[in-house]
């Protein structure tokens, strides 16, 4: 059985559900929006998932795919407390699932992109290029960095989604004094998004004029990476303890492969064609037995 957790309106999760349903693979959808009958029971032998009064023995679970949302103000205060407790319990249940269960992704591994520069240490160790980076609260240091490189980008340090923007010499940077800010040398080149599912890669070249393609027009084109770069993507995914990753790469005009970030819960749907190859690979991965050694 595969356990899916999140919202039915979440397309990446629902696409996997549809593949499992089409194939007749047993699954259990723990819907965040309708989980009044779901609890995680604490026993002396560990955590046990109980849905509608029925225990779900972990021995019957082959895979777990977690994509929960913070429902915030969408529910009242009492329900928010209950959902918060359940979310924590489900995370701990998935985290403590035995190695025979493929968890996409183990919650502890999913945290690595909460600090991009910290994650970059692993990216660098695997062999991808990482651009010169400054983290600072000093407007003078920020201005000197921008002047040195001529063009820099500013983006969030943490996991909060932010719009990447470009800064050039003489831009106003005094606001950095209030909060550490990340600046990186601008690297001209071609953007790629790579989804890694286990050992399988799905690569798209992104055609865009925008600095941040997510907030500008873009086109996608399936592509293949040089084998050495593909292997680096697999190694990076494994090093971060992930089963599913969305890797942001840029092939620089200087001939080097840069890696910006590894998304640990990628919303891959817009990269998936009508044949849902990524969702299919993920469904197969969830159902395919023990995790790699």
């Amino acid at each position, binding site marked *: 059985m595969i356990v899916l957790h999140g919202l039915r309106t979440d397309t990446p999760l629902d696409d996997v559900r549809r593949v499992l349903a089409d194939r007749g693979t047993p699954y259990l959808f723990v819907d965040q929006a309708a989980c009044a009958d779901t609890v995680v029971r604490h026993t002396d032998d560990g955590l046990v998932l109980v849905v509608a009064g029925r225990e779900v023995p972990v021995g019957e679970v082959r895979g777990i795919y977690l994509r929960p949302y913070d429902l915030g103000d969408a529910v009242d205060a009492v329900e928010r407390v209950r959902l918060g407790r359940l979310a924590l319990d489900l995370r701990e249940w998935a985290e403590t699932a035995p190695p025979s269960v493929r968890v996409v992704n183990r919650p502890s591994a999913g945290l690595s992109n909460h600090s991009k520069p*910290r994650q970059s240490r692993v990216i660098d160790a695997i062999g991808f290029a990482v651009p*010169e980076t400054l983290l600072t609260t000093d407007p003078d240091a920020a201005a000197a960095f921008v002047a040195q490189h001529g063009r820099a980008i500013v983006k969030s340090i943490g996991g909060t989604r932010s719009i990447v923007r470009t800064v050039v010499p003489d831009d106003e940077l005094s606001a950095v004094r209030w909060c550490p800010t990340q600046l990186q040398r601008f690297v001209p080149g071609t953007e790629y998004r790579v989804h890694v599912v286990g050992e399988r890669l799905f690569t798209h070249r992104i055609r865009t004029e925008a600095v941040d393609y997510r907030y500008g027009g873009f086109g996608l084109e399936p592509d293949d990476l040089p084998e050495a770069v593909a292997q680096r993507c697999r190694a990076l995914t494994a090093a971060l303890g992930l089963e599913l990753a969305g890797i942001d790469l840029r092939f620089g005009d200087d001939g080097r492969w840069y890696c910006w970030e590894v998304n640990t819960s990628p919303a891959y749907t817009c990269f998936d064609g009508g044949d849902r190859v990524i969702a299919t690979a993920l469904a197969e991965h969830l159902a395919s037995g023990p995790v790699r050694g």
Partner: protein
Amino acid sequence: MILVLASQRDPGAAALVAGWAGARLLTPADLSLPGWTLVAGPSSRTGRAPGRGIADGEGFTDDGVRCLVSLLAGVEPGDLSWIAEEHRDYVATEMTAFLGHWLATLEGRCLVAPSHASLAGPRPPTAVWAAAADLPMTGGAQPVTPAVVTVVGGEVFRVAGEGPAPSSEVRRHLVRMAVSHGVPLLSAVVDLGGRDALPRLHAVLPAPLARTEPVRAAIRQLVDRTVPRLVGEPVREEVAS
């Protein structure tokens, strides 16, 4: 130099530093002052430019940090009263991410290595801690006789709660738990149980509490005993608090 990373709302942290010569308190307020510069990426490997930071409102270079003691799991929006309310969540997340990276660069100089989940150490599920302690869990139930304890090295101190002190057996279990994860400083809530009930682990807290003077004295001694001095650093002298 010893840095104590904590919320400015944590009186235990302020008292820890007040009684400790050479120690400085680093709070989220210091991250809203100009002066922090850390290089990352390829420039960081040259070894020529130590990071610069601010603690207690004054600058330092991070090659002068002998030990960092974190009493902070992450920056909370409530720590950032000087930031416009609508920006506090974002700034708190950014500061936490920044500190997570910086602490990782300090490597062995953190008394407890940060995890991705907490600036103060690992945060495995309670079930994992309980297994390491060889104690049952309270599960979702409220503790009958809760006691909040702080483990410092091989010692266990109660910092909150009423009723009897944790038995020597419970203390041994808690020290075993901390040692098994390589964590010399942590705080936990234990249910000491009743006359017939067994002690149980309720939770390990996201960050340690230094609420009492015996805990603070033990932390100072632990750091002094276990963390090597930097070349040329003077021997610490306790100052009256």
